[in-house]
């Protein structure tokens, strides 16, 4: 549609939804229906709404979201695999005037980076952490991760994950909630409009905790990986609601804010 035709069609109308300013024009590299895209946008919208674009730094994982620096119009550091919470801590301690967020997949946060993630939470560092749990290693082709559900088929568990071989799925948010360090820990999802709105609220709260100097906030978000789950995007959304959520219930787990 031409600019003129659009202007005519939208006369007397208000723009109620548009691309946030904290994203540039670069297309995401995610697969169709991947929730990383929704979550990236929610973080960018929140940065816009809080007016912190010029003093926010992101730290990105190794994983499908490795390229955050390409499309976020803010500074982003991409540390070694699993070291995202540690590097976010370093940035925050060196420059307490900046808002710093860590963005990590389940492989990054709960597998190779468990040590770093856990100690950052235990120190109660004043950072905002997003843990994107899609129950497998998306980027490398869908291998089992510590958060893979029991009986879930992955490329490394072709017959399904068995507890006797690999243990049950690790519940990072519940585990970290047992510590005295963290201020806020919540689990959210983005498979429908209601959950997307709730996730946005949680993201905003987690950033506010940091700007108010109140300490460590973790937002775990259950995320779809349609391609490695072997499902179309609509089915992948249903899987979260009907299956993943039963193992990883939604809602606030800890709130000392």
């Amino acid at each position, binding site marked *: 549609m031409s600019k003129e035709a659009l202007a005519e069609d939208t006369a007397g109308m208000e*723009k109620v939804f548009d691309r946030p300013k904290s994203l540039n024009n670069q297309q995401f590299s995610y697969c169709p229906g991947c929730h990383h895209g929704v979550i990236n946008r929610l973080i960018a919208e929140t940065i816009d709404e809080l007016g912190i674009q010029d003093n926010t730094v992101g730290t990105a994982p190794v994983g499908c979201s490795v390229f955050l620096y390409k499309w976020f119009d803010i500074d982003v550091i991409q540390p070694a695999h699993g070291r995202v919470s540690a590097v976010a801590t370093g940035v925050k301690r060196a420059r307490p005037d900046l808002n710093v967020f860590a963005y990590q997949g389940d492989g990054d946060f709960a597998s190779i980076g468990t040590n770093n993630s856990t100690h950052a939470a235990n120190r109660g560092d004043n950072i905002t952490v997003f843990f994107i749990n899609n129950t497998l290693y998306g980027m490398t082709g869908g291998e089992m991760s510590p958060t893979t559900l029991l009986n879930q088929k992955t490329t490394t568990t072709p017959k399904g994950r068995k507890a006797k071989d690999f243990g049950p799925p690790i519940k990072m948010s519940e585990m970290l909630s047992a510590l005295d360090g963290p201020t806020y820990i919540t689990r959210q999802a983005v498979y429908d409009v209601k959950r997307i*709105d709730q996730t946005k609220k949680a993201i905003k709260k987690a950033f506010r905790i940091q700007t108010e100097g109140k300490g460590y906030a973790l937002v775990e978000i259950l995320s779809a990986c349609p391609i490695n789950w072997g499902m179309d995007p609509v089915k992948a959304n249903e899987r979260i609601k009907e299956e993943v959520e039963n193992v990883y219930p939604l809602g606030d787990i800890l709130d000392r804010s």
Partner: protein
Amino acid sequence: MPRGKVSVHEERCKGCGLCIEACPQGVLSFSGDFNSSGYDYVTVDNPEDCVGCGFCGKVCPDVALTVYKKQKEGV
């Protein structure tokens, strides 16, 4: 005149279909055509039924939609 209006950035759309599923008004559908990345992008099929709720924009993982809503009259 419809209460809302959606504009699709066809080149950004990856044809995931989540907006079609989320729209309460049945406004959107696949175009049956392909963008330069090879995706069957979404098109506005029933523009008259759009209420400008923004649901489609919120669920879109690729930020491919802009939504407009009619302002309230006589405030």
